[in-house]
């Protein structure tokens, strides 16, 4: 069974700077994503062909998700939301490679990203309504809902991060169990299901939820 993130080494030999396998695979993912992005956007032409179509389709598909929920601000939020999609999607898929575990199977990754979304959504809310106006909105529609609203705000990053974490870890646990119960070819389609399908769906959900949190904070 996946034993969870392991400390591999310590950065600069300091015991308070542990480097886990999550972090190493996270770095690997970042490097691979950048190499892929550079490859896809090499030699862009007005008439797209081949790999340029892939890059454009990816960016415009994400843009099409953002624009209806944050009208007129699609391009402003695109880098943030698209990076969530791409990073989480890639981190989920990398678990498909034997010997590598998904960084999203570590709560540190998902909670970190959920906290970034949390901060961005509150910042956008304040930017839209002003600091006081934004805090006042927690007392609406009636003032006694204020504690509930505050609790629900803090519940957001938790549910946001645990949803992804739980899906990935759960998938991993099930596959490990199947490996022990029925080795051979049986776990192969399950890999496809849990790593490819659930992985991409969860990345999409994480991104869509991030958009909706920002959208809710702004409205």
């Amino acid at each position, binding site marked *: 069974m996946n*034993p*969870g*993130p392991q400390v591999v080494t310590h950065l600069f030999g300091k015991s*308070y*700077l*542990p480097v*886990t396998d*999550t*972090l190493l695979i*996270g*770095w690997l993912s*970042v490097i691979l*994503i*950048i190499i892929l*992005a*550079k490859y*896809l*956007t090499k030699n*862009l*032409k*007005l008439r*797209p062909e081949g790999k*340029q179509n892939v*890059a*454009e389709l990816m*960016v*415009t598909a994400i843009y099409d998700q953002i624009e209806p929920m944050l009208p007129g601000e699609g*391009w402003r939020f*695109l*880098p*943030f939301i*698209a*990076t*969530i999609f*791409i*990073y989480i999607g890639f981190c989920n898929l990398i678990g498909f490679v034997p010997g590598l575990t998904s*960084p999203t199977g*570590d*709560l*540190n*990754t998902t*909670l*970190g*990203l959920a*906290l*970034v979304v949390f901060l961005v959504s509150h910042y956008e809310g304040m930017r839209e309504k002003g600091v006081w106006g934004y805090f006042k909105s927690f007392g609406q529609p009636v003032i006694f809902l204020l504690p509930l609203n505050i609790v629900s705000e803090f519940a957001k990053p938790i549910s946001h991060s645990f949803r992804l974490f739980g899906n990935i*870890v759960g998938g991993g646990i099930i596959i490990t169990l199947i490996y022990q119960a029925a080795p051979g070819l049986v776990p192969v389609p399950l890999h496809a299901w849990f790593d490819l399908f659930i992985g991409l769906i969860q990345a999409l959900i994480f991104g869509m939820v991030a958009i909706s949190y920002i959208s809710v904070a702004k409205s």
Partner: protein
Amino acid sequence: MVNINTTLLWQVLNFLVLLWLLKKYLYGPIKEILDKRENTIKNEIAEAEKEHAEAMELKEEHRAELKRAREKSSDIVDKAERRARERSKEIITQAKVQAEKVEEDKLKEIEQAKVEARKEIRDDFTDITLLAAAQMIEKELDRNKHEELMAKYINQLDKKKLGDVQ
């Protein structure tokens, strides 16, 4: 298994670095090329509309020119026809005039011939009359009388024909 540590901060940093790098290498260039394409297409549509309008204008112009040319050509044909008609009329008139002149000349010639013929006839008649008269007179007049008459006659002739020479 669930253990929150510095990895969280590292992952946030990873995410932010990736965000920055992707902005530079993916979103930026893609947005740029999309905008460029949009602008190009917009410009091309505007250009095409402009060219279409120009083409329509040219077409209109050509139509007007064609109409003008047709009018001009029919004008030229009309003029040529008119000129031809005038010319034919002129030719006919000239021919008539010439014919009249020829007729007149011929009439004059005929008149002349008539006069000459009349004169000839008169001359011949005079001669015959003279001869007849001479024959009659020869019987009744003597020689002297005859010579006298002859002289008189010759004198008259001379007077008639030679005029001032005498």
